[in-house]
């Protein structure tokens, strides 16, 4: 399976000074889910206006509900029989994994996962028979494979392993060169969101899994691994955060929890919904270690405004901080060592509502994940995507045009002493139809509006989970590149992307920008010179 050329190739790299490109091995780029690609140098403010579509490929993945292509990952210099390649790995919701040549847009290999059909109610329990076309499935339980994989470090021979949890809850260890399983898959339960690789464990949050509710991990060193599940964590709101859990310097695994009750009276069955919960491994299981519950959790529950996006963790003046947000549309600054104080309700700082004044669970609020970076002057920034219009009562010194109405990105600076940090609004982007989690690279923000219709209930037909309704009413995704300091638009993809994007993410690596859409097409944008290189 391992190619004999790998060792030689690695030797050449290190002995001969062959330049290695950057890799994007996990959603958000790191354990902290910063979304910051520190290594990107090809794309710059000086040349970004020349960026164009380099290629697109119809992967053939059929959407399940609204899900299609998940966030791409990138590995440079993957040894292949035709020489080292930069390869893009992307999961398709219909249980597919694709490896695409980053330079040519040609398929290198693809996998299709099969597993016994789920035994649950038809149509995810949304009424009626199982639809023959998976596009009609309910968007909250699309089934299929919807996690973002994680790619491990090179082994002694320079090869890497990609870990992906298929729709049947089977964790695969896949050789990135061949696409083949390196060892039998481990049945660990489904992960709806991104995987983490930490301390020789694959870690994720389980939502629907019959294996566990809470954090689940699988050891990569155990020859006969069994999933390690959570204890003392009662069932209430599911684990959210599109980029999956974030992990701090202490090894605490942080996740947000969806709508539900809060009842901490029983330490053996902690009900901690609408919160940011940190899990630690104790006695061989994952246990809730500490948490922050907004003091208005009952309101959040009442209105389905849970803090549903992945937090981001960073250092600020020598202190580790965590920023989180959600559908309510505040940003919290938390100390991962003591996130909510003695009462679990006291953050270091919280912003006023910067959007979602109408308390709408479906078309407003912050969704997905926060991002963070530090500019050359040492200023720490937090970037928050949002849907719907911003709160006019919260003043951002810079408001870009056309004014955000359907969503956008909001940028905050972390200010104050490390002992008393706060967030200062700096800029708000132009309008984007449903602002999605962004990537920071080389002083620029790579953001996008998904173009998705996010309405779940209508005045006439009420609540309806048939995903084709939303699909029919959706537009198309548009990538925007913004100046990270001002939010000014530097470039956009215009009408290039033909359909919308649902609950996925944008990737920037080695001078290329990737985004998949509902139709299963993976788009790659880059500089014209890169197009020539690929031809």
């Amino acid at each position, binding site marked *: 399976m391992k190619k004999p050329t790998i060792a030689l190739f690695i030797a050449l790299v290190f002995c001969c000074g062959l330049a290695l490109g950057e890799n994007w091995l996990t959603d958000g780029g790191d354990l902290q889910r910063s979304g910051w690609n520190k290594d990107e140098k090809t794309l710059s403010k000086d040349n970004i206006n020349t960026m164009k579509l380099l290629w697109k490929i119809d992967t053939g993945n059929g959407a399940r509900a609204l899900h299609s292509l998940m966030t791409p990952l990138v590995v440079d210099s993957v040894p292949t029989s035709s020489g080292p390649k930069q390869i893009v790995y992307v999961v398709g919701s219909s249980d597919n994994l694709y490896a695409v040549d980053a330079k040519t847009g040609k398929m290198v290999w693809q996998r299709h996962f099969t597993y016994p059909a789920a035994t649950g*109610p038809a149509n995810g329990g949304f*009424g009626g028979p199982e639809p023959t076309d998976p596009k009609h499935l309910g968007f909250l*339980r699309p089934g299929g494979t919807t996690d973002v994989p994680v790619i491990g470090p090179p082994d002694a021979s320079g090869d890497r392993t990609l870990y992906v949890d298929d729709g049947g809850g089977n964790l695969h260890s896949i050789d990135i060169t061949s696409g083949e399983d390196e060892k039998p898959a481990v049945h660990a339960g489904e992960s709806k969101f991104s995987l983490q690789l930490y301390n020789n464990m694959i870690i994720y949050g389980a939502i629907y899994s019959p294996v566990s509710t809470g954090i689940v991990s699988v050891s990569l060193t155990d020859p006969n691994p069994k999933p390690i599940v959570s204890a003392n964590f009662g069932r209430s709101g599911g684990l959210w955060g599109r980029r999956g859990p974030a992990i701090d310097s202490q090894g605490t695994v942080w996740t947000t929890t*969806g709508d*539900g009750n809060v009842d901490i009276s029983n330490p053996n069955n902690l009900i901690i919904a609408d919160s940011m919960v940190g899990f630690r491994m104790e006695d061989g299981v994952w246990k809730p270690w500490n948490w922050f519950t907004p003091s208005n959790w*009952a309101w959040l529950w009442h209105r389905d405004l849970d803090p549903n996006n992945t937090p981001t963790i960073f250092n600020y003046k020598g202190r580790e901080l965590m920023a989180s947000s959600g559908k309510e549309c505040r940003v919290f600054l938390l100390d991962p060592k003591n996130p909510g104080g003695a009462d679990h309700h006291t953050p270091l700082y919280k912003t006023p509502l910067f959007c979602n004044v109408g308390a709408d669970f479906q078309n407003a609020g912050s969704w997905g994940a926060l991002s963070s970076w530090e500019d050359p002057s040492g200023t720490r920034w937090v970037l928050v995507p949002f849907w719907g219009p911003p709160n006019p009562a919260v003043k951002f010194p810079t408001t870009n045009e056309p004014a955000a109405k359907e969503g956008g990105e909001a940028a905050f600076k972390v200010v104050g002493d490390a002992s008393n940090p706060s967030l200062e609004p700096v800029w708000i982007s132009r309008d984007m139809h449903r602002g999605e989690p962004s990537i920071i690279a080389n002083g620029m923000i790579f953001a996008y509006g998904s173009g998705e219709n996010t309405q779940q209930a209508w005045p006439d037909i*009420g*609540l309806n989970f*048939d995903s084709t309704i939303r699909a029919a009413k959706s537009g198309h995704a548009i990538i925007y590149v913004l100046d990270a300091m001002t939010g000014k638009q530097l470039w956009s993809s215009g009408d290039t992307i033909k359909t919308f994007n649902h609950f996925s993410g944008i990737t920037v690596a080695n001078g290329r920008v990737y985004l998949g859409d509902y139709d299963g097409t993976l788009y790659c944008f880059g500089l014209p010179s890169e197009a020539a290189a690929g031809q």
Partner: protein
Amino acid sequence: MRKRFLWALCFAVGLCACVWAADWPSTAGNPQRDGWAQGETDLSKENIAAKKIELVYKYKFDNKAVGLHDMTAPIDLERIIGYQGFKQLLFIGGSSGSVYALDSDIGELFFKTKFDPIGSPAAPAAPSALCSGGLTANLAMPGQSGGGRGFGGAGRAPARGAARGAAPGRGAAAGRGAAPARGGGGGGFGRGPAVFWAVSSDGYLRTLRQQDGDATWIAPAKFVPANADVTGLNVDGDVIYAATANSCGGNPNGLYAALYTPPELPQMPGEPLVTQAKFQVVNFMTNGSGFSGTGGTAIAPDDSLVYGQVAEGKGTVAGTYHDTVLALDPKTLDVKDYFTPSGSLPPVKKGIASPGVTPAVFSWNDKTIVVAGGRDGRLYLLDGSSLGGANHRSPLYASDPVVKPDPHYGGDGIWGTFATWEDAANGNTRWIYAAIRGQATMQFPASDGSASTGAIVAFKVVDQGGNPALSPQWISHDMISPAGPVTANGLVFALSTGMTPRVAKDDGTPYTVAEEEKMAKPAVLYILDGTTGKELMSSGNAATSFSTSGIAVAGGRVFFTTHDNTLYAYGIPLER
């Protein structure tokens, strides 16, 4: 399939824990008119003692009172997954012809729907104390006041309040039969058109979407005569009931039923209905007075019969009505059974209100029991399946007079609606509460002070040789013309309406609207201990006008309206 769908939602909507609805969908909370807000946890003795219950907000509507009518008592949809988000909505009718929806969490207007008259209805006469004209009936929608969307039992979510701990499951709706809501109830937990109903002064049944109040999507249907005085609407499944009273507009009194065939919805929003809604209207005329009480009718838990009480009139089956409790077929309104109490009763005088209370239905020892009140001041317990036995005159139990009829237009008697609940924590003891006007004649073991004007009285249902009987328990302190009580979580919610308890002047002529308004006192809400009758809290002088409506309890809050078109909401403030 529906149940499966709902369970799926438990794991679905926002990946949230399932939130169980506890609505207040019609007068006295449900089609059975039992006045019991099951599953309520926030409104508790502990939270009252901790002074957590307070006036959360009041809201002044732009309605104009018509005669004595102003705002109807609210109905409450605890949770709608709406096109603008999750909301708890209060639906309230205004006498001048509009329906309002308030965002109940924050007391802000969500929508207002104005009804334009259809055709050329007869102009209403000048408002009198009994016949105001305008929109008179409480609104109604399908559902129950405790898990009525058909999926109760598994850890209902508390509506609000901090660190309350896990709410216990409520189990099957004890004593009520837990009939699931049908016909588009559920405010979003369903795929049918979620609607509620109002009756406008032109006599049309208006079908409003819960989502946005649109009343044109389903065409209005002619239902009752224009300018009729409609008491509380009732809805059971796909049938809407409207009782008329007081011969307003010169119309005879009776009961109207609209058999509703829901429209077939389009697959895509914004498209025309696939099939239109249909209404088939039938009626039952009393040939005398209207249906007693503010609730109009009560419906058996198994939907098999509709109960109502008629003070005077006549029919082919039951003969002369004399506080007769009728059991009607739910779709044809044919009389299936009846009970007429023995003994003499004071006459019903045209143009003057008589004491009257709408029967309530509950389960006791696997029997369906109907509790009714007579103008003789007695309470009757009837077998729901055989109201008066073979001779139609034999109740299961008749109490001594609780309050004596007043021949001098004092209005003494039993009024409004009942409240009844089953105390599962104490041997499934069944309690019944009633609102009386006048001095009680019955002795109660406990009282909370003198009560010469009016009061709430409490009884336990006890087993007497296999039949139910009533054991007096307590009488509250004095209240002015109390509205029908409501019970929840071991508490009794009572509203001293402030309306004059007298129904006419000494010479027997009715009061004018202006005279009624002048004599009235501000309404006061009281929360009583359900087992002792002791006052636990009151609204004091918060309200500045009297009330002509009633109480609603849902989602941790208690609501009432006053004649100055103001809604008052009490509960635990919700941190936003």
